[in-house]
């Protein structure tokens, strides 16, 4: 018997299974969560992108005037453009405007007098030629006649046009353009330093027998618990205008790139460390034994075994750090001084100049490096995973007095830096009036006496963090389950997966601005949530969606893929399997997602700075605003409140995890 010569499928329709109730429910869930991501992410981004291409300007050729003499006899009609050409009243730059620009019609008549009996007529030469009479919008090609008293109240309105003008303007503005250079500069420098420091730290943790490893691990994670702008405040206390150690800078100013870089290293350190530690922990003992048996020197072993093994981790850590720094807003705001970066530009354009269109342009510019870094990181992560799955013998370090001591010094210095900056903040929060009255008090914690939202802001933050943790975990885990554990529907699952990965590439500022465009539009039926806690929860869940999604996916992938077939062969609905088996088995991952969301909701500034309102002010934003108002000590105090809260939450999470594991996961122990 040989293989059939007929090597292609016979013609005919492919068999498609009927959908059972489970499949329909799963797809419905996926559709709902996908819809959530579309409304909370894709549509706002799209709106922002289209806004960046919109310009408003006065088109003078669209208006025609006719003026009478004192007796009421009208002369020849003449366009506004023609008048401007001869009299040069409005410059080209003045013709560019924003969506609510106004240009008085009387400008075109230098000898206008509202008491004169002269009459004026105006009409549009094209159907779209809007002008205001008082508050009434007129838009007509018919002549309208006004006496001079009324004509005084006529304003021309700009017309909307679509095109790349905003970008042209942005790139021809040297001040704005220099921000790109600045952003890239601090991001690259910070990345190099952070990756270097964290590699050394991770190397010491995994390859030495130094003491205090547990304490070092704990300390290294501390920066995650505070807003990114807190190190900025500490640096101001140390090296600012009245800083204790100002003389150490030898005349250099901490306000500017120096401060941003030091602060960035502080807050990106744990992120880089986690990635590099993972990469180093997959090292194979046998490779080192092989190197030793070949009599390779330590140095050579390091470059031929250690570095290649960790290279994906290093690349990934570099891109994550780069993205964190370039998209960060809090730190440059606090300590950047006159040094402009992209994130600050967005803030200035939107909050300072109310130029939303230009804010959108800067956002798009900021989106480019973030998206690029994201793509590269995803590619590298995929390779890292394939390394992880191979079986290896874990590396066991051997004691070496000199090396261990060097490691201890290295880690000790970094730990001192981290603890030091937080301690400075704590000190700043407790000292009555730096540097004149050094006695301790809790005055700085009396937030209700300062601007920024007071204790209510802190309560709002707690509320936001709890809501984000609960609702976010629910949405993220359910979504991940539906996409991971359903069959067929490949296209739909692909779209979902893309939407779930997208938030990681979108900087918080950009998301916030996109929300203004999308939700603050009265025509949007969701406009009602603008300015409420709801929009803050939605933006925070969306902003931090991806990491939670990946955590959930990893946990779900570790579960036997055959549970679903077994359950359906037993004719049990998937939700029974989900609630009885999947959720209990994934409980540790679910708790991890919720604490991640909680901590980030407490510290985030960039995602919410555009969309909080007076009654939804947040602690992290309060730190920013109090610092802005010069209340640096209370800002430090509020920052420390966030730190205490997150530290307590972490502790609680750890205890709860242990308890739940002991109670419900007896099956894990043999």
């Amino acid at each position, binding site marked *: *018997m*040989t*293989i*059939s010569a*007929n*090597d*292609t*499928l*016979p013609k*005919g329709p*492919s*068999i*498609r*299974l*009927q*959908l*059972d*109730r*489970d*499949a329909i429910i799963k797809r419905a869930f996926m559709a709902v969560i996908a819809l959530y991501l579309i409304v909370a992410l894709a549509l706002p981004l799209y709106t922002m992108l289209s806004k960046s291409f919109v310009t408003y300007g006065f088109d003078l050729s669209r208006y025609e005037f006719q003026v009478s003499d004192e007796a009421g006899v009208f002369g020849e009609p003449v366009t506004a453009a023609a008048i401007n050409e001869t009299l040069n009243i409005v410059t080209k730059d003045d013709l560019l405007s924003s969506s609510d620009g106004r240009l008085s019609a009387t400008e075109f008549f230098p000898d206008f007098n509202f008491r004169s009996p002269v009459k004026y007529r105006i009409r549009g030469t094209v159907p779209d030629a809007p002008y205001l009479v008082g508050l009434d919008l007129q838009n007509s090609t018919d002549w309208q006649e006004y006496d001079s008293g009324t004509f005084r109240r006529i304003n021309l309105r700009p017309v909307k046009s679509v095109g790349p003008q905003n970008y042209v303007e942005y790139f021809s503005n040297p001040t704005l353009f220099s921000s790109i250079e600045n952003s890239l500069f601090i991001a690259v420098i910070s990345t190099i330093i952070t990756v270097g420091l964290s590699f050394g730290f991770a190397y010491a943790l995994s390859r030495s027998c130094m003491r205090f490893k547990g304490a070092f691990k704990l300390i290294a994670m501390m920066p995650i618990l505070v807003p990114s702008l807190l190190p900025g405040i500490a640096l101001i206390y140390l090296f600012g205008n009245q800083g204790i150690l100002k003389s150490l800078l030898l005349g250099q100013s901490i306000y500017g790139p120096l401060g941003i870089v030091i602060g960035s290293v502080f807050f990106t350190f744990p992120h880089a460390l986690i990635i590099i530690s993972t990469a180093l922990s997959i090292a194979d003992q046998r490779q080192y034994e092989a190197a030793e048996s070949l009599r390779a020197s330590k140095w050579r072993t390091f470059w031929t075994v250690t570095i290649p093994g960790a290279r994906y981790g290093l690349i990934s850590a570099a891109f994550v750090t780069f993205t964190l720094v370039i998209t960060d807003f809090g730190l440059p705001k606090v300590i950047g001084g006159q040094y402009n970066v992209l994130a600050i530009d967005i803030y200035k354009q939107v909050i300072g100049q109310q130029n939303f269109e230009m804010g959108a342009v800067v956002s798009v510019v900021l989106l480019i490096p973030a998206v690029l870094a994201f793509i590269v990181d995803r590619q590298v992560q995929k390779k890292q995973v394939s390394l992880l799955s191979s079986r290896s013998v874990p590396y066991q370090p051997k004691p070496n007095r000199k090396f261990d001591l060097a490691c201890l010094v290295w880690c000790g210095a970094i730990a001192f830096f981290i603890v030091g900056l937080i301690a400075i903040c704590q000190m700043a929060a407790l000292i009555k009036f730096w540097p004149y009255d050094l006695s301790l008090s809790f005055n700085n914690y009396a937030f209700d006496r300062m601007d920024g939202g007071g204790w209510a802001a802190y309560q709002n933050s707690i509320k936001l963090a709890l809501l984000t943790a609960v609702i976010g975990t629910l949405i993220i885990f359910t979504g991940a389950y539906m996409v991971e554990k359903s*069959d067929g529907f490949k296209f739909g699952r692909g779209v979902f997966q893309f939407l779930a990965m997208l938030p990681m590439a979108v900087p918080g500022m950009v998301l916030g601005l996109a929300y203004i465009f999308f939700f603050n539009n009265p025509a949007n039926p969701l406009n009602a949530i603008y300015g409420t806690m709801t929009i803050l929860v939605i933006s925070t869940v969306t902003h931090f969606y991806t990491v939670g999604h990946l955590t959930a996916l990893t946990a779900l992938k570790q579960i*036997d893929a*055959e*549970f679903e*077939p*077994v*359950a*359906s*062969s*037993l*004719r*049990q*609905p998937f939700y*029974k399997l989900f609630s*009885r*088996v999947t959720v*209990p*088995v994934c409980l540790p991952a679910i708790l991890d997602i919720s604490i991640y969301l909680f901590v980030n909701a407490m510290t985030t500034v960039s995602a919410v700075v555009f969309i909080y309102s007076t009654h939804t002010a947040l602690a992290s934003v309060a730190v920013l605003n109090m610092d802005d108002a010069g209340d640096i000590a209370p800002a430090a105090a509020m920052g420390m409140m966030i730190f205490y809260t997150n530290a307590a939450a972490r502790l609680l999470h750890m205890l709860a995890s242990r308890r739940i594991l002991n109670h*419900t*996961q*007896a*099956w*894990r*122990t*043999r």
Partner: protein
Amino acid sequence: MNAASAGHANPTSVGGDSAPFLQIAGLWKAFGDFIALRDVNLDIAAGEFVCFLGPSGCGKTTLLRAVAGLDPQSRGTIRQGGNDISNLPPSKRDYGIVFQSYALFPNLTVRRNIAFGLENTNRPKAEIDARVAELLDLVGLPEQATKYPAQLSGGQQQRIALARAIAIKPGLLLLDEPLSALDAKVRVHLRHEIKELQRKLGVTTIMVTHDQEEALSMADRMVVMNHGVIEQVGTPTEIYRHPASLFVADFVGETNKIVSTFSQGTVKLGEVALKTDAKNLTDGTAVTVAIRPEDILPHAATGDNAAAGGLLPVTITDMEFLGSFWRTHLQGKTLGNTPLVANFSMNAVRRLNLKTGATLNIELPADRVLVFAGSPE
């Protein structure tokens, strides 16, 4: 594909008077450009224990998953109990399944694992408990109800998975390499137990395996597959004694393969011409002659006139002691120096005083010599 409908001689298969329980007709499965199943046709009678056997990638698991509705076929129909189930989702089909990984729910006790499919069916709790106890008895683990799967051995887990699958009294039991993850000893023991259980319950069963011993010892009928097609269907003895193709002869059991040419009702092995009753061969066709090691019979050496009696003089090049018999490697000038492997009993070895380097005559019984067109792969 002619072999697909062969092999109705077995005692458990239902005769032509009633329709088969499971009918697979014209089944194709494609993964992109790769054709995993080509025009598979198979009927399975009620109560039969059928094994799908073949090397990895032959399509046996694909076929099982199509029957289960987990990876639906691209073309073709599947009927179960007279109903077309071709496009029913798994939950609407009637089967229980056991996977190689067991897929026991780790956070549920043994009792709750088995009861999983019994809940939600308006059964009173007492009835469920009684059924679980009955099933635990049936698989011989009455003491383990309150343990978690991780606390059980692999063999015990496998039995719990089986109990869970048959708890809902499915019309069809699907076993996907159920014994592959177990130790050799446990495996042999469980083979017997599963077969006993199946006989007791009378449930139609399909088992996928790549282990021919497992298939030979358990199946009422075997379905040997290769490259997405069914090579042969038949009882274990049919498959072993009368393989329909060289692939089957080679894959099931062991066989010596000798390249030769067919001419006038004989095939030549070196200088010796062997008579064969193989049909449909024309003179000059390249063929492969196959004979199983245990079918080679040893005789005392007689010198040069051996060929006259249809015997072949050979020399022993190597011998391996395998407990109940000797695996003996042979070579002979008259055979054109093609190496052969023969299994000789302890008795024969002692009687003929066989050892490495010794010469003897061998007999290749005509009814045991198989001739296939073509050369081995």
